[in-house]
């Protein structure tokens, strides 16, 4: 069964082949990347079928030791078991759809080769993350995906918005990754290993478990864009739409949820971590949903929708059911990526992302509108689409755990979800047409959408099967819960139709905005999160950096320059000293000698007689002296 290794390996090889090539060569080898992901899809289906009959439990495992710390070995490995098998299908199906779709969507793009290379690397990383049998490998794949997200968001780096958005995404998730690193450290200190088998069966004390769980939750919040680390996801829409479909709807953002699912025993060992998770999810789901109501950019609506739906998954986790969360993760992956791909076609057709300029696409883009409807209904939670089943499961769990407040909030969030979905659909598809030459998407774009739409429609019926597969029960929803959630969803859609869907606008949204300017302002400014972060975090950081730079320039450089200046003046003084005093002494000595010589020179009269006189005089004196002395 070692061919399971090929599942993440094929896309990785596609990246390795494409990355070092020139732009033109890469563009030619794009089919290779598509083939790789299709190969992984095939293998994933085979892997699923291999696991399917056995039911629960691990089917295959392989690991390699990468390091020794003391007498302990650190291993990385892959393991195939039901959870990973399901996730394999999700990732490869969505990944294959996206790659095929991109053939049409990115058709005219110059750097399409690099796009496919990074996409392949991402797919490989996500597959490795899902198959990983230990936290360390999960973390490494986690980081690689963060890098690919950065590269893809900032794909059109010639423009400013993608550049800034990619940095924002990377840094915000990096804040969360700090939690992950610290959690790994605590895990190692506590357990001494990273693999799931050892860690999850360890006897965790409530305190340590809470610490680890909260740290991992923090990481998951970053990656899955929960409040307050959600700010990067809307900006990440600056990247190519198919990339957003894969990364920011279906897979990468789901990795946070997946991490919590993997580490669920630790969460369960600490009761408080689950409560916090629940509330994080509730807040996110409701507030993000409200934000989605006021967006004009179609992709931003979907982005906030993703944040909100991820909140739902966190609600499920917080309520104690990792199975429900995983269920919603799977369904969400399919219908959200479908919605994004549809949005791509819409944007292509309308040449704009602003919904206020769209309208009447239903007639001109039939396939798109049908598939988009499938996804929209799933998102709203209308039976029989997949979203209904998974969302209902979450609500059921809440009720089961007697979390009535949470239930009410979640229901409200579901209502809001339905509302903004309706708003989007009516605006885009049934509002009066504003543009003339709208045309349907290319076949390469439509086929994946159809595939996803079909899956969205039917997968809901496999809920209990999934539950059996994973080992936890996912029962058919109780009639009461189903009724309540359906009422909420229909209510939202009706309201949406009432405001946006009718021929003549009864509700004047502009007047509403003017009547409640503060409420609208809060929503329009995204609860001032970006402003707050920008002011405090970024602003604080830049102020600190500037202060340090000033310190460096003034004080440090001042000291250095001061030392240099002092040295220079010292050497100047020394030079002066040398010039004046030393040279003065030397010159003085020289001139003294010359003066003396001048005086002595007068002896050289050149006159023989004076010489004679001197000599004679000297001799005479000498003689006299001798005589005097002798006497």
């Amino acid at each position, binding site marked *: 069964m070692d061919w399971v290794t090929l599942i993440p390996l094929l896309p990785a090889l596609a990246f390795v082949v494409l990355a070092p090539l020139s732009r033109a060569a890469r563009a030619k080898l794009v089919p290779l990347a598509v083939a790789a992901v299709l190969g992984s899809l095939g293998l994933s289906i085979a892997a699923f079928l291999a696991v399917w009959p056995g039911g629960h439990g691990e089917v295959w495992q392989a690991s390699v030791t990468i390091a020794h710390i003391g007498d302990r070995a650190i291993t990385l490995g892959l393991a195939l078991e039901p959870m990973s098998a399901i996730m394999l299908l999700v990732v490869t199906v969505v990944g294959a759809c996206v790659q095929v779709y991109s053939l049409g969507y990115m058709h005219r793009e110059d750097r399409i080769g690099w796009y496919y290379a990074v996409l392949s690397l991402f797919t490989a990383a996500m597959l490795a993350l899902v198959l990983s049998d230990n936290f360390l490998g999960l973390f490494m794949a986690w980081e690689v995906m963060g890098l690919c997200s950065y590269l893809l968001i900032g794909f059109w780096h010639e423009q400013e918005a993608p550049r800034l958005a990619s940095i924002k995404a990377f840094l915000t998730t990096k804040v969360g990754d700090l939690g992950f690193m610290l959690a790994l450290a605590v895990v190692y200190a506590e357990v001494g290993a990273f693999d799931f088998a050892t860690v999850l069966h360890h006897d965790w004390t409530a305190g340590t478990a809470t610490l680890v769980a909260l740290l991992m939750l923090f990481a998951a919040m970053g990656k899955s864009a929960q409040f307050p680390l959600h700010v990067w996801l809307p900006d990440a829409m600056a990247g190519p739409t198919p990339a957003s479909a894969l990364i920011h709807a279906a897979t990468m953002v789901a990795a946070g949820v997946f991490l919590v699912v993997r580490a669920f025993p630790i969460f369960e060992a600490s009761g408080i971590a689950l409560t916090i998770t629940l509330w994080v999810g509730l807040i996110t789901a409701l507030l993000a949903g409200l934000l989605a109501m006021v967006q004009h950019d179609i992709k931003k609506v979907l982005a906030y929708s993703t944040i909100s739906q991820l909140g739902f998954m966190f609600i499920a986790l917080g309520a104690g059911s990792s199975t429900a969360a995983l269920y919603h993760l799977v369904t969400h992956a399919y219908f959200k990526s479908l919605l994004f791909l549809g949005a791509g076609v819409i944007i292509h057709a309308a040449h704009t992302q602003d919904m206020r300029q769209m309208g009447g696409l239903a007639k001109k883009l039939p396939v798109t509108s049908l598939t988009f409807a499938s996804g929209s209904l799933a998102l709203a939670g209308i039976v029989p689409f997949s979203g209904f089943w998974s969302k209902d499961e979450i609500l059921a769990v809440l009720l089961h755990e007697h979390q009535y407040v949470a239930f009410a909030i979640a229901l409200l969030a579901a209502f809001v979800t339905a509302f903004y979905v309706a708003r989007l659909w009516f605006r885009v598809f049934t509002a009066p047409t504003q543009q003339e030459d709208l045309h349907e998407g290319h076949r390469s774009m439509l086929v994946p959408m159809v595939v996803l739409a079909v899956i969205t429609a039917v997968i809901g019926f496999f809920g209990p099967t999934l539950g059996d597969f994973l080992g936890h029960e996912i029962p058919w929803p109780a009639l009461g819960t189903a009724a309540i959630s359906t009422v909420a969803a229909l209510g939202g859609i009706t309201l949406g139709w009432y405001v946006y869907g009718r021929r003549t606008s009864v509700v004047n949204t502009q007047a509403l905005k003017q009547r409640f300017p503060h409420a609208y302002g809060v929503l329009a400014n995204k609860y001032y999160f970006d402003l707050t972060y920008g002011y405090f975090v970024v602003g604080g950081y830049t102020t600190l950096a500037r202060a340090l730079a000033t310190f460096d320039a003034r004080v440090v450089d001042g000291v250095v320059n001061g030392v240099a200046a002092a040295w220079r003046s010292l050497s100047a003084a020394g030079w002066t000293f040398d010039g004046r005093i030393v040279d003065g002494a030397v010159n003085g000595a020289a001139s003294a000698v010359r003066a003396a010589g001048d005086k002595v020179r007068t002896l050289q*009269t050149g*006159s023989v*007689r004076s010489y004679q006189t001197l000599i*004679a005089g000297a001799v005479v004196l000498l003689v006299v002296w001798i005589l005097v002395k002798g006497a």
Partner: protein
Amino acid sequence: MTVGLPHVLTLAALLFGIGLYGALSRKNAVHVMMSLELMANAVNLNLVGFSRFVTPEAITGQFFAVFSMVVSAAEIGLGLALVIAIYRRKRSVELDAVQELKG
């Protein structure tokens, strides 16, 4: 009174003094040379006197005087040749005329 060594020496000293005066004070080069000869003469006289009175057998002084004469002769020969050479250049034998070495 009897004449002895002191008288000879006194004479020689006087002659030498006169010659010294002449050598120092005359401006004419030839005259200076003549004064020098006078001084040399006085010296020779001294030597001979000592020889006669102190070492009469060995007559050392006389030999000394002979060689002194040789040197004086050489000296004056060269000196006068020098004077003539200078005269050819300078057209004068005044000592004051030759001051090229004035520093």
